[in-house]
């Protein structure tokens, strides 16, 4: 067949329905090949067996072809149970602190003048654009034994406690305290922005009406503002909780190696122990744990009219 004919047919196809097929098809195929298939391989890997080969696993084996040893160890080895509990509690505490700090900040942002507001919003987003790793690193400097920040807190601690309790420096690094602190620091914008978005939409005349009817300021907040901002609280809370629970960088850099979080356990099983089936089983278990918060999140996002 001659080339012009082929080109014609191609352009006819493209103009009729080819363009829409391509728009759906290309990203679809991409995500199936590079996201869904790799993920399904991990699921399959979680029931494979370890093997002394490279790569260190073997599918199949004897009937019933699956090896549930990894999942059994999840429930019997307390390393995994403790790692899950540490992750969930660290993520939960970080979420609560983000809410306690982020809510008044978001509310404050809706009360300043519009010009100051756009600058302050930019200042909230700015750390988000700088390197995540360097933000964690900034706290490593502050929490270290010899830093001015640690000295400051140590002095304050020594002032308030009896002399026999005096410390040379506070042991802040390599602890769950450090992990939660850095998580609050790095994830706070994720809390502030959805809260701000939901608080900004509120009608200020409702506040005024409640005030005119004699409600005290805190009562206005509790009865009028807070109930209306619940979608923002849920969105912000999950945007902090979900990544925090699976976090790897923060616990590796400032966390306690003795009680690792689950992300670190997965990476260690994979890289150091080279037990790929176990790493996969832990991954699948983490996702199963996360399914409920993820579904709540997408439910609220769908109600809010698509993701922001």
């Amino acid at each position: 067949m001659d080339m012009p004919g082929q080109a014609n047919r191609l352009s006819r196809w493209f103009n009729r329905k080819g363009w829409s097929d391509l728009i759906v098809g290309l990203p679809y195929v991409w995500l199936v090949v590079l996201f869904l298939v790799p993920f399904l391989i991990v699921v399959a890997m979680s029931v494979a067996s370890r093997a002394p080969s490279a790569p260190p696993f073997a599918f199949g084996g004897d009937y019933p072809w699956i090896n549930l040893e990894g999942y059994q160890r999840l429930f019997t080895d307390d390393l995994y149970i403790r790692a899950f509990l540490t992750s969930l509690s660290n993520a939960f505490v970080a979420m609560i602190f983000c809410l306690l700090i982020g809510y008044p900040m978001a509310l404050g942002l809706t009360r300043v003048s519009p010009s100051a507001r756009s600058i302050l919003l930019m200042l909230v987003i700015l750390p988000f654009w700088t390197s995540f790793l360097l933000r964690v690193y900034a706290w490593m400097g502050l929490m270290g034994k010899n830093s001015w920040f640690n000295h400051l807190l140590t002095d304050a601690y020594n002032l308030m406690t009896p002399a026999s309790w005096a410390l040379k420096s506070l042991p802040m690094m390599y602890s769950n305290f450090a992990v939660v602190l850095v998580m609050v620091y790095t994830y706070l914008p994720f809390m502030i922005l959805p809260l701000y978005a939901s608080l900004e939409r509120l009608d200020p005349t409702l506040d005024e009406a409640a005030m005119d009817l004699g409600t005290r300021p805190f009562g206005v907040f509790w009865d009028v503002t807070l109930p209306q901002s619940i979608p923002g609280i849920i969105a912000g809370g999950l945007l902090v909780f979900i990544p925090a629970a699976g976090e790897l960088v923060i616990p590796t850099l400032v966390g306690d190696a003795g009680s690792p979080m689950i992300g670190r356990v997965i990476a260690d099983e994979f890289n150091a122990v080279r037990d790929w089936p176990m790493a996969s089983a832990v991954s699948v278990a983490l996702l199963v744990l996360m399914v409920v918060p993820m579904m709540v999140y997408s439910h609220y996002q769908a109600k809010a009219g698509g993701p922001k």
Partner: protein
Amino acid sequence: MNRRPLFLITVLCFGFAFFYIPILSMMVYSFNASRLATVWGGFSTKWYVSLFSNEQIGAALLLSLQIALISATFATILGTMAGIALARFQKFRGRVLFSGLVSAPLIMPEVITGISLLIFFILLGELIGWPGQRGFTTITLAHITFSMVFVTTIVQSRLIQADRSIEEAAMDLGSRPWQVLKDVTLPVIFPAILSGWLLAFTISLDDVVITAFTTGPGSTTLPLLIWSKVKLGVTPDINALASLTVLVVGIGVALAGWILNRAEKRRAADERLAYQANQ
């Protein structure tokens, strides 16, 4: 009004102090003469000098920028397509799976994405002989995959907000659907596509975890280099690097904000003029 704003303003001040004191402290200590990164030993710019003479850092930065440029561009193309598909094509086969695939990478823990891609690349290498070695290509493929969904969410929400009457008018005037998309829809959502590209570029430039799993010998991006140094503790040249990053990003974000703000104002003015002309 009442006492509440005072309380809120106080929290705002403390909040911003919390955000910026660690960064400012890092910037101050980047001029520290002492080798001990956290003990002040006088003013010096030697860490900046050692930073600029460090070829390793230059090479890593170059690699990171190359990967970020390529992956952001492909992620923007694919992500915009997916956003258009989800916001404008009401029915197509497998839509439910597709919308799941677009939102899942957003909330998937990075470790799991990293491990699954690494296993995938290894198995693929065994199966068809490619990729023989992980590095530039595998990192770029991974970055496209996890950053394209961010572009999709931006483009999709912009399309949902967009006024569809212009598209409908073009359709009524006899444009083909493809022409409507090309000549009407795409120009309207262009700012969203641009901010999608910028976001994809930044998250590619910033990624550690997924890059660490998909990299190979000789392919050290800047975050990977920082990661390997920072794991060993606080070093003064990283302070200098961090300060420069904050400076560059700060200027960039301020500039981008100013440009977007100006474009928005001009668009609003144009719309007003068009409206007045039609009166």
